[in-house]
């Protein structure tokens, strides 16, 4: 079995990528997603991909899957009815929600408070108390626990979460409640906070545990169904799910800890970008995934995405390790408008969504969107070679005219350019969050653009950030599936220590790290990976004693060699990061909050395809010429068909490169060079090249 499958289920389409591990040759399939049961679309796509490769399903090995099942359960409010067990006196922990009201002064006037994921009437409290040092102040009142759980059972909760005060320091009471719950509630799934997130801060830990419980039944049902159906169809390999941190995990482990899957989709894009960039010779880059309603950005350094400790989905922020993806609520569907009072030109936050969509889609949309602006400017050709959609330019012009009427802008082109400039500025803001604001200079990075609208705006963002080259992957629409198919197995183990450095020594920390490494490796070994093939990396969240936020720092285990230099090295790494982020240091003692070990399996052997070399002249791929509007005036742009381009061809801007699921704009003064691996590399004509080329 030398084929592996990448599967990415999005809101509209299910993308399948079948990879021949020997040749690197890939076969794609795209089928409509089937929201009622995603596995239907997945099976259909797999069958199609196998047909086009001319192989039977039994030749497929492992299936690597990025999933939005968990995310959708949150966004659509369709998760389980969750019961919550808290410590007496803390029943309203989710109701009070740290007392936080978003927005500025007077923001409380217009804030609709979301309902907690575990309803207050399904939240019970039990007697028993653990102190912050883990000592038991009051024994668990088991009669009270039984009474409380029985009331939840009678209310019909579908999943249970348990989160007791200070359980990160001593999990005994939580484990005992879980045991009793298993007796009383039968096969209801149980999420225990000391397992899901053994960290200090009761609200964040409770919320994360409840979110885990909330999505668990849907995820478990889905992974079980899909696994069964894959087996029934003759696929013999294992099913793996992509975690939010970009690593793969077995379907069973995913179902145990589904809160780690909430950013599975975006993580697939980032890992896919990492694969593509590496093939093109780049190790450090920003990712820019622009869709219809939102845009995700991330930073990858030395092939490794920056990892964050928070995961945000809609209104919900949980503490779960994930690729540090920042999302802005702006995309191709964002609507431009002019509030009468201030006469400012605003783009978003309202979006035309899929229905009615932009005016140019001709489905009844009348408000001007970013896509309409792109049509007005000629960046999106109205009929695409091989495309099924034709765009209504007149409708787009009419929509954008409303902006002209409301402002002193002189023409629809000027207004359209303004809309595009403003939405690009929003994107720039997001890219700055992951670069400049983390102490990274975007000019040291390339920019990988994908998603439906990414390649259209990418050149402009290269110009705004100075991140060159701008890399447009082959088939920007199936990049997530590529990520799924080319990443590694991963698991992690975490422990909260909360100790000042003076209370630690090299040996004691090394012992903790070794134990964590064992834990992190265990699940991968159970899944049949070879011990020798695993690599383990270590990280600690550190701060100055008394600070409220931690900075994650990698630990170099080799410095813990018994000579006592390990903690010093760690202290220096932290100071470097603190200086980089905030430009000052403190004299306070260093404190280690959590430590984690991450075990990673071998990278799958997938080789890259190579395009036939061309002579540099792309004219064979040029299909027509179109007038577009750039920098305040009209110019003629060549239109090129991407699948006709050959390796080494150089497309000079202004140009538009079209393909089935995406359109790339190359601005005047820039060229797009076709890399043999299939990516387009866009650079300014006078660019000398500062991107990290491996």
């Amino acid at each position, binding site marked *: 079995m030398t084929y592996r499958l990448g599967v990415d289920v999005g809101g509209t389409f299910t993308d399948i990528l079948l990879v021949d591990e020997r040749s690197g040759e890939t076969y794609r399939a795209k089928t409509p997603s089937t929201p009622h049961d995603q596995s239907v679309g997945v099976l259909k796509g797999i069958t199609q991909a196998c047909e086009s490769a001319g192989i039977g399903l039994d030749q497929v090995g492992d299936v690597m899957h990025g999933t939005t099942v968990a995310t959708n359960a949150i966004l659509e409010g369709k998760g389980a009815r969750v019961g919550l067990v808290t410590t007496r*006196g*803390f*029943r*309203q*922990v989710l*109701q*009070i*929600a*740290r*007392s*936080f*009201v978003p*927005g*500025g*002064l*007077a*923001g*409380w*006037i*217009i*804030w*609709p*408070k979301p309902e907690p994921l575990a309803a*207050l*009437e399904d939240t019970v409290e039990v007697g028993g108390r653990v*102190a912050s040092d883990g000592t038991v*102040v009051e024994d668990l009142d088991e009669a009270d626990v039984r009474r409380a759980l029985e009331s939840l059972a009678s209310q019909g909760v579908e999943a249970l979460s348990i989160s007791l*005060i200070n359980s*990160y320091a001593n999990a005994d009471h939580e484990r005992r409640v879980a045991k009793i719950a298993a007796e009383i509630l039968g096969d209801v799934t149980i999420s225990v906070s000391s397992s899901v997130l053994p960290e*200090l*801060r*009761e609200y*964040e830990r409770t919320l994360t545990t409840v979110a885990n419980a909330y999505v668990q039944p849907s995820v478990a049902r889905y992974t079980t169904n899909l696994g069964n159906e894959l087996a029934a169809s003759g696929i013999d390999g294992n099913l793996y799910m992509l975690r939010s941190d970009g690593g793969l995990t077995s379907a069973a482990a995913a179902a145990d800890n589904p809160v780690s899957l909430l950013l599975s989709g975006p993580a697939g894009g980032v890992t896919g970008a990492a694969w593509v960039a590496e093939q093109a010779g780049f190790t450090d880059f920003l990712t820019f995934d622009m869709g219809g309603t939102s845009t995700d950005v991330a930073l990858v350094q030395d092939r490794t995405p920056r990892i964050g400790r928070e995961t945000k989905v809609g209104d919900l922020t949980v503490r779960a390790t994930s690729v540090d993806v920042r999302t802005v609520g702006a995309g191709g569907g964002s609507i431009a408008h002019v*509030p009468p*009072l*201030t*006469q*400012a*030109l*605003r783009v978003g936050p309202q979006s035309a969504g899929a229905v009615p969509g932009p005016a140019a889609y001709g489905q009844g949309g009348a408000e001007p969107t970013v896509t309409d602006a792109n049509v007005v400017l000629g960046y999106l050709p109205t009929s695409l070679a091989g495309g099924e959609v034709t765009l209504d330019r007149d409708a787009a012009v009419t929509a954008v005219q409303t902006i002209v009427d409301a402002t*002193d*802008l002189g023409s629809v082109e000027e207004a359209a350019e*303004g809309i595009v*400039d*403003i939405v690009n*500025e929003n994107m720039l*803001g997001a890219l*700055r969050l992951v670069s400049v*604001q983390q102490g990274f200079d975007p000019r040291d990075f390339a920019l990988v653009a994908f998603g439906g609208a990414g390649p259209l705006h990418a050149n402009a963002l290269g110009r705004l950030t100075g991140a060159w080259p701008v890399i447009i992957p082959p088939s920007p629409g199936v990049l997530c599936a590529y990520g799924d198919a080319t990443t590694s197995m991963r698991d992690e183990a975490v422990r909260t220590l909360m100790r000042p450095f003076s209370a630690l020594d090299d040996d004691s920390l090394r012992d903790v790290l070794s134990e964590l490494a064992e834990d992190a490796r265990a699940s991968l070994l159970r899944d049949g990976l070879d011990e020798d093939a695993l690599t383990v990396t270590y990280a600690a969240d550190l701060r*100055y004693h*008394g*600070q*409220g*936020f931690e900075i994650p720092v990698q630990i170099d285990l080799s410095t813990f060699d018994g000579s006592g230099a390990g903690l010093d090295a760690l202290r220096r790494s932290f100071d470097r990061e603190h200086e980089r*982020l*905030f*430009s*000052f240091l*403190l004299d*306070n003692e260093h404190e280690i909050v959590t430590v984690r070990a991450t075990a990673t399996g071998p990278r799958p052997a997938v080789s890259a395809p190579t395009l036939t070399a061309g002579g540099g002249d792309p004219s064979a791929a040029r299909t027509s010429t179109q007038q577009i509007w750039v920098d305040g005036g009209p110019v003629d742009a060549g239109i090129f068909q991407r699948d006709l381009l050959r390796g080494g061809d150089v497309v000079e801007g202004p140009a538009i490169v079209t393909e089935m699921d995406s359109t790339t704009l190359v601005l005047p003064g820039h060229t797009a060079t076709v890399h043999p691996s299939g990516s387009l590399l866009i650079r300014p004509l006078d660019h000398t090249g500062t991107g990290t080329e491996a």
Partner: protein
Amino acid sequence: MAQLIETATTPLSPVDVDVITLDLVENALRNARYEMDEVLFRTALSPGIREQHDEFPLIGDPEGKMVVGQFGLSIPDFLENFDGTIEEGDVLLTSDPYSCGAAISHANDWLVVMPIYFEGRIVGWSSMFGHMSDVGGKTPASMPTDARTIYEEGVVIPPFKLYKKGVLDEDALRIILNQVRKPDWNRADLNGLVAACRTAGRRVQELCARFGADTYTSALDALLDRNYRAMKALLQMVFKDGETLSFTDYICDDGVGYGPYELKLSLTRNGDKVLLDFTGSSPQAQGPINYFINENLVRMFFGIYMITVADPQILWNDGFYPLVDVEIPEDSFWKPRFPAALNARNHGIGRVFDLFGGLLGQTNPDLLNAAGFSSSPHFMYSGNYSEGERKGEWFQLYSIGFGGIPGRPIGDGPDGHSLWPSFVNIPCEYLESYYPLRVEAWETVADTGGAGLHRGGNAVDVAYRFLEPGTIAIHDDRWLTYPWGVNGGAPGARGTKWLERADGTREVLPSKVHDVPVARGDVLHFVTWGGGGWGDPLARDPELVGLEVRRGLVTVDGARRYGVVCDESGTVDASATESLRSALREERPDVLPTFDSGPPLEEILARCEEETGLPAPKPPVPL
């Protein structure tokens, strides 16, 4: 008046800025302002700033007018009061409200102001203040509730250069930090404030490099003008020419036995402009509750209520200030005479929300909110560990409490939430890890939110059990007067505080008190107040009332205030509910009052001791 030193002397020339560039600059400034918060939160040490976010950033134009920020400080007033030069690399610090035209309003707030230079000239200002948990003085946390002069409120720093051309004045900082109880907190928090201001400075310099200083500063003018034009139109729409609106609310007491203090605010539109007039408010307080308010701050509060509704995405700035005249009488609660004590002005700041809400809501009752949790009440606990590893070590806690958001036109007020932006509570597990205490309950109190079609949010009860002897302090209000309801909604419940001593006795504490000794095992109940109700409680869906009974947010008895009869499980008795509602309708006037502040003040005062366990305050007297 500060003397600004610039090496580039050619003036910037105003240029036309298109609407798009304007939006790009506006967006970039908004990002920079949030970045300031982020830098400070992540580096500060005091729980008040790092966990609760008691801080306020600002970016100003070359003259110091706020182009982005959210609240209060006034660089022009600061510069007006500063004698000396200002050069590139200087960073100024002050904590003296009397030396900066009340740009800050008590000595716990440390204000950092920094000029932003680009190519030799000032293109803007960045500024930020944060509440220091302790600035020395006679009581931990530096907020003595019985102070009568600012001299009792710790170190008061006159405006001076903390950094002179980029070089830190170590000696001055050492002298200042020698006055305070937790110098490592102040040092880290101050570092964070400076780092945040420098971040903003870099962002502004980047904008100047990208667009050119002429375009950047012209864009700021246009942004200010955008606010001016928007406000001018709004004023005409909302207020009748020549008509005066007034509203009065109260601060219950001043910490030394006088009260309630009457806070009166009137508004009159005269042509293009409005006048906000505080005449009729109580005289300067004897105790430390005076809220020395800057005129520009009044304009800003006013503007927030006016503009945010019209264009929520607007970058809120000082541009409309010329449209608003402000009259504040001398020697009053709002403008006390130096050296009046100021530390407990948090009640006054909070009550400004209610004042403006009540005043402006009169023109459109549908947009009127009830009275909310209009304060940021403080709880302090400090002492020395008496045993164990940390024996002898000093501990000190300053924390902010929360209560009920009022019933609002859009719906119920959230329970136990913050009226202040970005404020959050300190996690219980954090408190228990860093302080010798245990939190035995952290919950909202059923029925404390005012009844209404939209219920007021409930108050919070936090029960702290002390594990070491020490002293505590409390700064709260609304223990006497009620958080009013509107449009037929009932007032919320008042706040209360009591100690359950380890020996079994119970002791009601005043809402403003400090240096109260506590022993190991004593439990403090810190109960805040609820939000007022909005609209007719008898119109609320009985099933929703039932659900809230099941949730423990309303009791079975409390449900009767909505005319709902139900049992403990929240099951509604429909016919009993209908007859109770009819009976209640019979007893009340046909037209429900716009404001319901509970019983008349005389009655509240007469029943004070019986209802609250505390003696009634004496009427305020002019000094």
